[in-house]
Structure formats: C-alpha cells, structure tokens
C-alpha cells in the first residue's frame, strides 16, 4: 500500500498501519544502530525511540516525503547521539565499564577464524569513527556531505576515512592474493 495512504490511516488512529509502514524498515534500522553502538540494548532503545519519534511526527502532521530515507536518517542520527553520549561517558573511566555487549561486528569477525581474509581486512579498522563512516556510506548509502554533517566532520575527513578503509582492505586483498589490483 502506498505510504501516503498508510500515513493517513495512522493519523486516523490505526496502529496496524504504522506497523505496516515500519516493519520493512526495522531490520535495517536496528542493524545500523547496532553497528554503530555495538550494544543490543542501546540499539533496541534507539530504534524504539526512533519509532516513537516517527509516530509522533506523523501524528503531528509533519510532511514526510520519502519516509524510508527519513526514517533511516533518523535512526542514524539517534544512534550517533547515543554513541556520542557513550564516548563522553568513557571520558570518566571510573564510571563506565566495557563489560558486555561491547564487541563490535567488525571485532567479532576477527574471532571467527573460519572467516575469509577479506573480512579480516575490514576488521583491522578498529577505529570507531571509521566503522561509523563505513556503515553510513556503504550500508545506509548516505552521501558524503550528509555523513559529514551528521558526524560533524569535514567532507575531506569522511573521504579520507573511506579512502583509508579501502586501502586497508586493498592491502589485505593483495597480500592474500585474492584479487588483482583492479581498484578505482
């Protein structure tokens, strides 16, 4: 059903229409958030908050032209907000531990010895800024300009993160002779 119709049904009080609208988006939204936050609980909370925010925006009559894009951006923004908060908490090491749920997707791969070498290439990039840039660019397919605004980084920094990520991977691939040097 067309999103416009769903939105007007939601505004009439139909919760099922909201579920219909967001169900196809939850998985990607959650994965993005988890990729950034590395915590199941936090990612779940972020997505829940984003769902509520989306719902309230719809109910208040906000004009949302491309709901999917808008929703994914909302999740990315809220995940970055939570990530920044985490980073601030980390500044006072006495107060926060890194006990559980702190394994990143990338780090997980390192542990999986059966994984192929390409994955190890990505895993070697353990700087969280990098990972976020990679997720936003490759998974969320956001533009460099958007990422730079979201993260408060210069476009050139985003580009350099991407370039370095590609180079690291390329190096691994060459070392392992999986592919040739057919790069951009």
């Amino acid at each position: 059903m067309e999103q416009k119709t769903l939105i007007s049904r939601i505004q009439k009080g139909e919760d099922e229409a909201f579920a219909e609208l967001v169900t196809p988006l939850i998985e990607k939204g959650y994965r993005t958030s988890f990729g950034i936050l590395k915590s199941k609980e936090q990612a779940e909370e972020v997505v829940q908050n984003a769902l509520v925010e989306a719902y309230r925006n719809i109910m208040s009559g906000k004009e949302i032209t491309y709901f999917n894009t808008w929703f994914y951006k909302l999740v990315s923004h809220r995940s970055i907000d939570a990530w920044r908060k985490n980073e601030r908490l980390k500044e006072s090491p006495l107060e926060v531990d890194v006990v559980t749920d702190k394994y990143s997707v990338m780090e997980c791969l390192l542990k999986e010895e059966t994984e192929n070498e390409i994955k190890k290439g990505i895993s070697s990039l353990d700087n969280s800024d990098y990972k976020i840039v990679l997720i936003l660019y490759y998974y969320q397919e956001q533009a460099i300009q958007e990422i730079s605004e979201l993260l408060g980084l210069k476009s050139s920094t985003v580009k350099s993160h991407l370039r370095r990520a590609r180079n690291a991977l390329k190096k691994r691939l060459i070392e392992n002779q999986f592919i040739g040097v057919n790069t951009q």
Partner: protein
Amino acid sequence: MKIDESVKKEIQEEMDKIQTPPSLYEFAKNISKESKNRADVEKSTGRKRGRRKLHFVVAAVISFVILTGSAFLSPTMAEVVSKIPYLGQIFYKPIQEVIWEDLAKEGYQLSAIGMGKWEQKPYFDIELNGTEEYVKQEEGKVINILNEILDKRGYDNYELMVSAKNENEVSSVQKEIDKQREELGEKLMSDLEGAGYPIMNVNTYGPVVSVYIPIADEAKKVEIYKAAIELLKANETPKQVQVITRDLSEEEIESRWMPVMSSIEEELFLKKEYEVADIRYSYNPEKVTITIMTNMKSSDIEDNQTTIKISKEIIEFLNSEEVKRMTENQKYELIIQDKNGDDFLF
C-alpha cells in the same frame, strides 16, 4: 571486483548477521500506547537528570498522584505574592490544579493531566475517565474550557490533547522487560547494601545501570563500582555501570526552590513572546544559578527589551519576601542566553 564493491559486500554480509529483536516489531504494533508510555517515562525520568530538570513537568507528574490538597503555597502567601505582576499570579495555584478543578466543576472526571514538552512546545494531555467514544464527543468542549483557562493567565504557547484513560497502557513485552529490570535493580541494591555499601538508589531502567551514593562516600566509588560489576556478572546479567554521587545538601536546596522554579517555568514556557527553549539550574550551596535559554537574538532591539522584561519580572519575584523566606534567602544568579548561547546583558 572493485574495491568499493568488496567493502560494500563485506559490510552488507556483516550487517546481515545481526539478529533483530522480535520485540521491536511488537513495539511497532502497539505504537500509540508505547508513545504514550514513553511520554510518561520522559516526564518522570526528567526529574533525575539534574541540571536540566523541568519542574513544570515534574509538577504534572506529581499531579497524577496527589492532585488534591497540594501543599503549594498557603492562600495568605499567595495573596501577598500575587501583588507582583506576571509571575505572582501563579502563586494562586499551579495551572494543572486549576485545570483539574475547573473541569471537575463542569462535570468531567479526570484520571490524569499530563504536562510536558514535545519539540519545544509545551503540551497538556488531559486524560478523561470514560470510553473513547465519550471522549471524542466531549473533546471539543473540553478544549474550549482549557483554552479559556489558559487564556485567562495570558498563556498562548501550548498544545492540547484530550484522551481516554488507557486501561491497558503497557504491552505485555514491555511489562516483562520492566519487571526484569525492576527485579534486577532490587537485587543489586540489596546485594550492595548487604555488602555494607551506602546505596541511595539503583536505576536499572537504562542501558547503563546507575548506582547512586552520597557524595560523602565518594572515596568508595571505585570499590562500589567494582562490586556492582561483579554482582551483575555473578547474576548473569552483566551490564555497564556508572556510580553517581549525590549531594544531599544540593537536593535539599533543590526541593526548597522547586515551587519557585515551577512558577518561573510555567510563565516562561507557556508564553510565546519569551521564546524560551530551555531552562537549566544548578543548585550549589553557595549560589543557585538559573539559566534561561531563549531563541532570541542579542542583536535584536525588541528581543533585548523582552529580555529586560523577563529579568525584571523574575528578579522582582525572587526578591519578594515570600520567595526569600522559602529559599532561605539564598544567593542566586540569573542568566538569560540568546539562541547562540551568549548571555544577554540586562
């Protein structure tokens, strides 16, 4: 394969491994209830956030529970303070009490009044006892009454909602999560106390477990933190932990100032002309600081005049004998900021 495509493919594969919790789909199905619950939680947790507390909102939460017989101010005091223009009028009665009483006089049975801020706009959510049908039928009349009440006080910056009392507000999944979190909190608190630590409170409702201790016991912070981590691990519920020290004297100061701050918030948030975005406080035993953050421009002449008006009213109010008595004549500082966070001069 091009390197860009390789990276993309790898990331895609990694992300595909992440399992989405089914509870999120359940959450989406119950969105209206969840949204409402969230608004209530936002209000109640706002009280614990410190430095950014909205007493205006807190007052509403209290009104859910003990609306009748609120010990706001004695009528005598209200009479004296009411001579002060603008802010003084609030001392008659907080707005939520007036709403409750006036609607009751019109024959409406309220189950709750929610007050809060959503996207910079204050809102009132009036929950009536009765079926949805009844509420729909009465909504227009109730809104007219509310507009009249708010208009009498010169308030023009708010949104109104009228809803039916929700009998089944919390979904079963959420109930189960809340129950687990509550049990975890109780267990951790009793374990820590059992180990001889001075624990004021434990909050397990967020992604990070917060353990509150008196500031006097700050030296034990690291020890308590380690103990909490160990206890959570032993309980097979490992989580991140933060130990937060609370200054009891600051909390006392805060409770003394609370009715005063509520009045200031009510007045400032509910009038468009003040363009108030947020109000923050710090309750230092030496000095209480009130920072009013506005959306005004310090370069604008009219905005400067409004600032002078706000400051004059607040200072006059804070310097009144009654307020001084309530706050035990404590020193205060008033800061009004423009939209860029720069202080206005007044």
